């Protein structure tokens, strides 16, 4: 059914699950077992009283594969709900990253100016390095990292995407 010409799209999918042992392994195993991609993965308990966790996955595939991913996730037993933010268009996506840049002189000043423009905050400073904290859509973080590369980029740590819907409604 897939053809080579079908475009590969990137989608952000959130899965609300019961926080029981093995549920993350079951979700992740579904991706590896069926040959789907995971570009990033974010997991945390979001309601200790209701014992629910939220798993947000950025994945890529043809529209047919994305449809299958949603259908396969929906039938995992401890899953409450599956939401595709890319299809729904009503979602806000944010990611946080810690980015270490080492250098001196002009490059160091340039890094600081760029960080200011991106509203990144220096959370650790030495004479020869900065650690910047930056929050934003994944594309913004990609751009910032690209800009830091010639300025002495040393290390990157990204949280993966968290997503939520706009407006007053829950997921």
């Amino acid at each position: 059914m897939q053809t080579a010409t079908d475009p590969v799209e990137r989608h952000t999918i959130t899965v609300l699950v019961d926080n029981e042992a093995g549920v993350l392994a079951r979700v992740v195993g579904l991706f590896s077992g069926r040959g789907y991609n995971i570009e990033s993965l974010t997991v945390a308990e979001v309601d200790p009283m209701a014992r629910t966790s939220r798993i947000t996955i950025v994945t890529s595939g043809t529209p047919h594969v994305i449809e299958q991913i949603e259908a396969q996730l929906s039938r995992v037993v401890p899953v409450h709900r599956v939401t595709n933010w890319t299809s729904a268009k009503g979602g806000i996506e944010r990611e946080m990253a810690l980015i270490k840049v080492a250098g001196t002189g002009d490059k160091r000043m340039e890094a600081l100016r760029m960080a200011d423009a991106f509203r990144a905050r220096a959370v650790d400073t030495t004479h020869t390095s900065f650690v910047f904290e930056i929050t934003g859509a994944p594309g913004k973080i990609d751009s910032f990292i690209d800009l830091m590369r010639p300025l002495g980029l040393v290390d990157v740590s990204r949280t993966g995407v968290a997503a939520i819907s706009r407006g007053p409604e829950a997921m």
Partner: protein
Amino acid sequence: MDKDNLITERHNDSGAITLTGAEMVIRALKDQGVTHIFGYPGGAVLPIYDALFAAEGITHVLVRHEQGATHAAEGYARSTGKPGVVLVTSGPGATNAVTGIADALMDSIPLVVITGQVPTHLIGTDAFQECDTVGITRPCTKQNWLVKDVNDLSRTLHEAFQIATTGRPGPVVVDIPKDIQFKKGAYVTPASVKHRTYRPKTDPDLSSIVKAVEMMAEAKRPIFYTGGGIINAGPEAAKALRELAALTGFPVTSTLMGLGAFPASSPQWLGMLGMHGTWEANNAMHDCDLMICLGARFDDRVTGRIDAFSPGSKKIHLDIDASQINKTVRVDLGIVGDAAKGIKEMVHFWKTQKKKADQAALKDWWAQIDQWRAKKSLSFKNSSTLIKPQYAVDRLYELTKGRKTFITTEVGQHQMWAAQRFKFEEPNRWMTSGGLGTMGYGLPAAVGVQVAHPDALVIDIAGEASVQMTMQEMSTAIQYNLPIKIFILNNQYMGMVRQWQEILHGGRYSHSYSEALPDFVKMAEAFGCLGLRAETPAELDGKIMEMIDSKLPVLFDCRVDQAENCYPMIPSGAAHNEMLLGPDDGGEVSEAGKMLV
């Protein structure tokens, strides 16, 4: 006083029953209506076996290998509609059960597998007979659990039964550490358990049913393509299918897993479809203008080359599992729901909306189908000196019809010949490993079927290679007086492997010859059952009757033509209308086709 005792007392105050974990297992099985379990004891399940020792109303069938327990439970489940229950120990007990669990997942068979585990304080220490059972079985179960608190045990067991048997059925595993089996806790009854997330959708969307019925009334060349979902939905689904077929007059074909849902004696029956399906079924699938898929999943063995699959048809797909719709074949109308409910609604709306099939078009369609039928694609050249495997299956059918007969199979040529030639009139009479294709399934499955139906005639149509994989279960059959009949089509080859090597690999029969076969008759005697051998067509009927009349389990060594291939056949990578009818039909397999399995 430790924490666990506090919890027990609190539950006692509220009137709940206090039991040990092991006692809870037995109690939960009884509350779930379980009468038979298949298992094998070991260190990590000893407390449960101890509770079983005193238990009344549950019969334990001791197998000889845990794989046998899972297949026996599958046979039991498939032939009764009830869940099959398995009890095995930790480590190798669990890993040996994995093949049967994976088999049950592929064929949607409800199994509840209870495994012992090392005590909780030893988990993760590489203890004796420890393995990560929930990790190993996660991808081959519908759901699984490691129970670390005895107060969660009874709820988990009840949820396990609910999940295994409802929605799309499947296997579940409950892993119980040994210390949890000893600990006391509160037992809850099934009625008090409501799962937090699991809500299978069984009621079909009625507007979609109405649309389906409209499409059916407009169809010129319709076909019902039915599958194992109809068997799983229970006898009501098969009954509704028969009514819908009678009302519409449409032709019916079925997958391997769906055989028996529609009677083979019906003039509307086209036979099985797919790789070894009939000429008429596959051509009708290819040329139809409306395909009504009921409880089947467009398996690659059914569709053949996917981009050439039924190119001109509109497709309706009724399935209880939403993820099956549009999985491999794009359909025009997908309906999520239980097959029995969905088909009943189709019958209801067909009647109340006073729908009529297009009789003129249907007449032409049947005329075309009759032309395909005239090819007699299942015919074969019989021999007066050699037993042809097709002839053996035909005689077995003729000599057993009219009896309450259940057929199981192993996997390979004999399985396809049985599927093509044995005529099933009722659901739940045909047990075979379709999705996983597990050699060694049929013999233990026959054990499970015979346990459930002590008075029935249960025959495993086997191959000499497959049957050696689980032969040890003959000992189980003897122990429990289960007179299963193992009818071995012995061609001294892994026949389907040899057939593919002939077609795809230039006749280089690499390691597919059954060298050093045992003498099956002497083997039968060693087990304490009856051994029979037939070598000529002339003696076949007499020997089959001897097998049927015996009160013992029977190993029947039916020596058949070694060179016979299974036709018709859609070669790998070919379309439904590119079937090979026999050895002289030529047909080249494309390079792409050779890559497929």
